[in-house]
């Protein structure tokens, strides 16, 4: 485990989808580094594990705040950021980790609603939280925004066209925000993770041989730990070390980007077992 160094002392962070996988890793890591963290999930029951884990971090409980919110809902995303400002007085960092996932389907069969849901919970939620945070960051003299992309759009992963266009949109949003908000000392970067996420664990259970093969093709020969490896890089971009890094897409993946191991899913597979399928509001 990496040693905490107080790298985010006094900072206030918002993390979407912070109760499992990479988002949970970011919440825990940021709390250990001294930040106050406001995070959300659609389902309050999802927060049970975090409550236990946060209670074990000295002094973290009073700096952590869970908000039940749907990332596909604009009002709730503005509300999430405003809650952070109301409770902790500012917002320095927004990590847009959450993403609703639809079943894997061929393009010719994919319903329009899947595209709408995936864009709302991936692209629009990232836009909304950033729009909500912008005036505060501008007034404070700076801030850090982190969006998420994926290896999948790089390789055109089959049956995930809705997901691929959403993540590509996030990369474009990253560069636009870097340009438009750079003059206010707000950096914006995008993460492509190869983490031991919830989705990867399910995929691994379904396809152990394929995963063993995939991990052999990762130059570091392993998947990333959500808190140590993936959240570590996000921490670096949000700490003082990342102060002049903006507009970039970072593969935090042990070198996977150079090896391009496409996952061999079958059409119709639901690697999130229904857990991530947010309803589209309106």
């Amino acid at each position, binding site marked *: 485990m990496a040693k905490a160094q107080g790298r985010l002392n006094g900072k206030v962070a918002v993390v979407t989808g912070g109760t499992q996988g990479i988002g949970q890793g970011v919440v825990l890591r940021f709390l250990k580094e001294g930040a106050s963290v406001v995070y959300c999930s659609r389902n309050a029951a999802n927060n049970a594990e975090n409550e236990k884990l946060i209670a074990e971090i000295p002094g973290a409980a009073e700096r952590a705040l869970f908000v039940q919110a749907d990332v596909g809902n604009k009002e709730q995303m503005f509300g999430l950021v405003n809650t952070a400002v109301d409770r902790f007085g500012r917002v320095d960092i927004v990590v847009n980790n959450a993403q609703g996932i639809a079943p894997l389907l061929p393009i010719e069969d994919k319903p329009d609603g899947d595209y709408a849901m995936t864009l709302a919970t991936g692209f629009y939620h990232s836009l909304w939280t950033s729009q909500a945070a912008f005036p505060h960051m501008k007034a404070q003299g700076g801030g850090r925004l982190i969006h998420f992309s994926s290896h999948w759009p790089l390789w055109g992963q089959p049956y995930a066209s809705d997901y691929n266009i959403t993540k590509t949109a996030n990369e474009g949003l990253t560069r636009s925000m870097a*340009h438009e908000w750079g003059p206010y000392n707000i*950096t914006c970067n995008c993460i492509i993770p*190869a983490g031991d996420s919830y989705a990867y664990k399910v995929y691994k259970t379904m396809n152990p041989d394929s995963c063993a093969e995939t991990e052999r093709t990762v130059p*570091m020969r392993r998947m990333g730990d959500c808190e140590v490896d993936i959240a570590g890089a996000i921490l670096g971009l949000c700490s003082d*070390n*990342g102060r*002049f*890094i*903006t507009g970039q897409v970072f593969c935090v993946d042990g070198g996977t*980007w150079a090896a391009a191991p496409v996952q061999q899913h079958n059409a119709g597979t639901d690697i999130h077992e229904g857990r991530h399928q947010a309803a589209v509001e309106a």
Partner: protein
Amino acid sequence: MKQIEGQVAIVAGGGGGVGEGIALRMGREGATVIVVDADGAGAEKVAAAVRAAGGKASAVRGDMAAAGVARKIADDAATAHGGIDILVNAQFPTTAWSRLEDKDITDFNTTLTGTVVAAASAMKAVFPHLKSRGAGRIVNVGSMYGPTANEAVSDAIAADGALANLSRAVGVEWARHNILVNYLQGAMPDIPAFQEYRSEKGGIIDHLISNTPMQRLADPVEDIGGAAMFLVSDEARFIVGHKVYADGGQHLTAAVFEPGASR
């Protein structure tokens, strides 16, 4: 808190410019810094500055591309300090600006040898020491002209691309040993060479700054040195063969360097 307390870092090309900023930062963050530069006086000056700030540093005059030099520097450093944790390749010789049709072809030998061959030699030299530690970080510093289409520096841009690909190729080869190789580019550094250029062509630089997202020059210690710390600290422990621009977003903007241009 110091980020790399007790580690041993070789900073090649650390006698001036961007390398100087990285060497000063690593000294401040608790590393023992071996400043290597073909300009021995520059190396001595930077090592002295690290020591004056309370850090640990020594200077070596040397060209990493010359036969046997990198091996001796690495072995001596490992013997003196008990091992090596970090290598920064920031050496980047400059040649006269001209478009390719007028460029002396030997400029390519100078630039590619002084960057790519030097970096590869230094990496080979530190490899056994990093491997025996079970961990290591290597940062290859590219050219500030690399990401955009600046004119009259084709040798530097070619070398920059080669350094990025060297970092990717060896990054893949050595990741299994937990030796992470990445590329760092620090643009628009607030260093003497850049200030001199700005005094001659101020309008061009002002235009560049106003077009760059963060709209300011890079502080070599805080901004570029900070990005170097990202790459050598626990933060980047899962990043391999990657490019990192410490440039306030300048890689997203148009180039403005043209020979003879004036504003």
